[in-house]
């Protein structure tokens, strides 16, 4: 039994023009059997930071301990510059400028992202690209799929609050895609 392939997962994050998108599949399985088709792999840490955890689902739910997990981190850094990175289960970081992938469908995801990625995509086009890359890749992996959760974040309008402080409203779009047969 391969421990990283016990539950099945697919995660991808991509950088666009002043925005990022992070997407995951929705399947929770126990080897060949599908338990649920609405499993959430991506957590919002705060307004500008999202974390997706692929690998063993029980470890993704545990706070402290050895983890059979590969994280995908996506967020907006200083001056709202989009930031993405992934790591293996022992913390070897991969900082990428374009896209990062993780999970049982990672090999398919590398191929799909490499061919579909373009520099400086606007939020709507980035969302479409990430969705198509994810859906195409999980269709070739029996351990992941059953739709996808796609979150994309970009800097929105600047606004003035009632207490005189100004801030930035970030636009977050979370889309759940079902798999149609």
């Amino acid at each position: 039994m391969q421990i990283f392939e016990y539950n099945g997962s697919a995660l991808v994050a991509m950088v666009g023009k002043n925005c990022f998108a992070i997407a995951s599949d929705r399947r929770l399985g126990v080897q060949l059997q599908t338990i649920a088709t609405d499993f959430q792999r991506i957590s919002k840490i705060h307004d500008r930071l999202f974390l997706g955890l692929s690998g063993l689902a029980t470890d993704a739910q545990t706070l402290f301990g050895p983890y059979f997990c590969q994280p995908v981190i996506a967020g907006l850094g200083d001056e709202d510059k989009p930031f993405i990175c992934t790591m293996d289960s022992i913390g070897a970081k991969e900082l990428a400028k374009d896209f990062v992938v993780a999970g049982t469908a990672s090999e398919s995801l590398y191929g799909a992202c490499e061919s579909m990625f373009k520099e400086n995509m606007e939020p709507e086009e980035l969302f479409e690209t990430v969705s198509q890359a994810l859906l195409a890749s999980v269709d070739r992996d029996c351990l992941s799929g059953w739709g996808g959760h796609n979150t994309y974040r970009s800097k929105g309008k600047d606004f003035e609050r009632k207490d005189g402080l100004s801030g930035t409203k970030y636009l977050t779009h979370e889309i759940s895609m079902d798999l149609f047969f």
Partner: protein
Amino acid sequence: MECVFGFVGNGFAVVAADTSAVHSILVHKSNEDKIMVLDSHKLIAASGESGDRVQFTEYIQKNVALYQFRNGIPLTTAAAANFTRGELATALRKNPYFVNILLAGYDKETGPSLYYIDYIATLHKVDKGAFGYGSYFSLSMMDRHYHSGMTVEEAIDLVDKCIMEIRSRLVVAPPNFVIKIVDKDGAREYAWRESVKDAAVASA
């Protein structure tokens, strides 16, 4: 192998489990109740290694009761599920419990709910769930016939369909099952489905 399955209906949750206690090729008893009443409005259907099953579910039951004594209010189903998962996760890397659990409960605010917790402490809230070899049959039956908001009659009909499927298609099918239900009036035994009764012992 042990069969446990359950699902959520309209204002209730139902779980069913087989009632065979087996060691290797021997059936010790065929009326072993594997669905524990955790508290007034919670059921815990467990399958797996028999010693672990009893010890672990009793441990959870007593801790849930302790919380109620200390704090004056019962735990919600979600809280009990997360507590159970935490205990399994903590023990996982030291001395794991080989117990798979379906935790069904009814809360006044949120209604009925069902939680799937496998032996390596994967927790997920589900509408329908199953463990064991029987899951290959019961999950498919539920995928076909389940819809949200089923009445008790429809639900028991589906449970019976699953039991029929397990009995006819599983080579080492357990003969007897127990069905328990939890709704706003509490957790209780609903019915037994017995095809093999223990023979009455002649008095000495």
